[in-house]
């Protein structure tokens, strides 16, 4: 029986291969190269440690509607609770926090430092790492697992003041603009001022598109409330509403 089965299966494989050959007479290597080249560039740069993990999150859920930044009233400082950022008890959505979440997990669009220093600055800015003059240090809270294998990186920082936090958002927007100019069309960078209707504060989301023809994009949303900021970096395919849920969960816990 097994010999018969093997023969039948190999025969079907051959027939399907011949059919495919007839249907695809020309070379399609170029199509693959268009998809592969940018991905190899991303991977190489990520391995070299100059990954640009960026982005934004367009989280528009039933309870989280994006609004222009200016329409959202500033809130009291979340840091008024005086609980260290990494000790705050909060309840992330999805499957909760997972350990060991690093930047590589969240997808990255990369360019070399020599080619695009603005993009490198945007990379660090998306992780709240930069502008030490504004006070505070980034605290990596881990990754929030949700969906089918998606993990969003979450970083918090308590700036010196609410003004400093807002200044950071402005710097993030400028970095996104600079990166977009330097990327020369190889990647797309888009920044927008956003807010969440059910949550006080303001934010900026940055969307970095790989330009690989698949609509692949990495997103970071930095939301500030008072002097405190939370950055959520989502990998491609992550649900948009989940990003807002993470932000809401964090600041809700902060306000008690």
């Amino acid at each position, binding site marked *: 029986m097994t010999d018969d089965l093997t023969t039948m299966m190999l025969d079907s494989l051959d027939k399907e291969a*011949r059919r495919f050959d007839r*249907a695809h007479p020309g070379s399609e*290597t170029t199509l693959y190269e268009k998809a*592969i080249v940018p991905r190899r560039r991303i991977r190489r740069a990520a391995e070299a440690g100059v990954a640009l993990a960026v982005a934004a999150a367009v989280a528009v859920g039933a309870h989280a509607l994006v609004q222009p930044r200016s329409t959202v009233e500033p809130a009291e400082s979340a840091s008024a609770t005086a609980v260290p950022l990494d000790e705050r008890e909060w309840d992330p959505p999805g499957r909760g926090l997972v350990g060991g979440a690093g930047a590589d997990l969240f997808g990255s669009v990369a360019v070399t430092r020599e080619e695009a220093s603005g993009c490198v600055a945007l990379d660090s800015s998306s992780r709240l790492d930069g502008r030490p003059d504004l006070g505070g240090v980034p605290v990596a809270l881990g990754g929030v697992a949700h969906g089918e294998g998606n993990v969003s990186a979450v970083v918090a920082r308590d700036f010196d003041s609410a003004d400093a936090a807002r200044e950071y958002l402005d710097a993030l927007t400028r970095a996104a603009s600079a990166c977009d100019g330097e990327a020369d069309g190889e990647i797309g960078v888009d920044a927008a001022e956003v807010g969440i209707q059910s949550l006080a504060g303001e934010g900026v989301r940055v969307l970095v598109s790989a330009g690989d023809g698949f609509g692949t994009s990495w997103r970071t949303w930095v939301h500030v409330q008072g002097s405190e900021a939370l950055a959520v970096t989502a990998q491609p395919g992550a649900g948009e509403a989940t990003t807002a849920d993470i932000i809401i969960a964090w600041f809700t816990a902060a306000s008690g």
Partner: protein
Amino acid sequence: MRAWHGVLDTLVRERRSRLVGYAYLLAGDRPTAEDLVHDAIIRTFSRARRLDHVNEAEAYVRRTILTQFLNRRDHAAMARSKLPLLVERDAPPADEHAGEHDAVVVALRRLPPRQRACVVLRHVEGLTTAETADRMGVSEGAVKRYLHDALAAMRETLGGFGFGDRDDDEDLTAVETRRRAR
């Protein structure tokens, strides 16, 4: 031109059609098979640091096809995400029902994915039980059980296509012996 470009070109020109055939046995329909192969080629060449030989690349692609097949949950969604590749083709869209005259494909399609994968790995790739288990990330006992159940089902489906009643597969014998011993 870097080495991987040449390997990719050779793979696409000379090996892709048989990879599609291989994926077709696993997936049971053409759109999914073609999508599995497209995705596996892109993943393989995007990730591998060095790909100097087409045989090596083909082996990677086959492994990726299997992994993707076992892990996929929404074939339609993935197919839609590959639209840019698909729409640039000159050929008409694949007919997912055009292969149904192959009784063995119909029989395979009726099997659960892991059983199907075991049958293909053993009888098309010619892997041993241990190699099949390693490739699928399951125990050898699980492979034997999958094969036993799969071959029993296929024997029933393909009874009119020259399959005998006696099964001389050594794995099947081992499983049946163990079951009788319980």
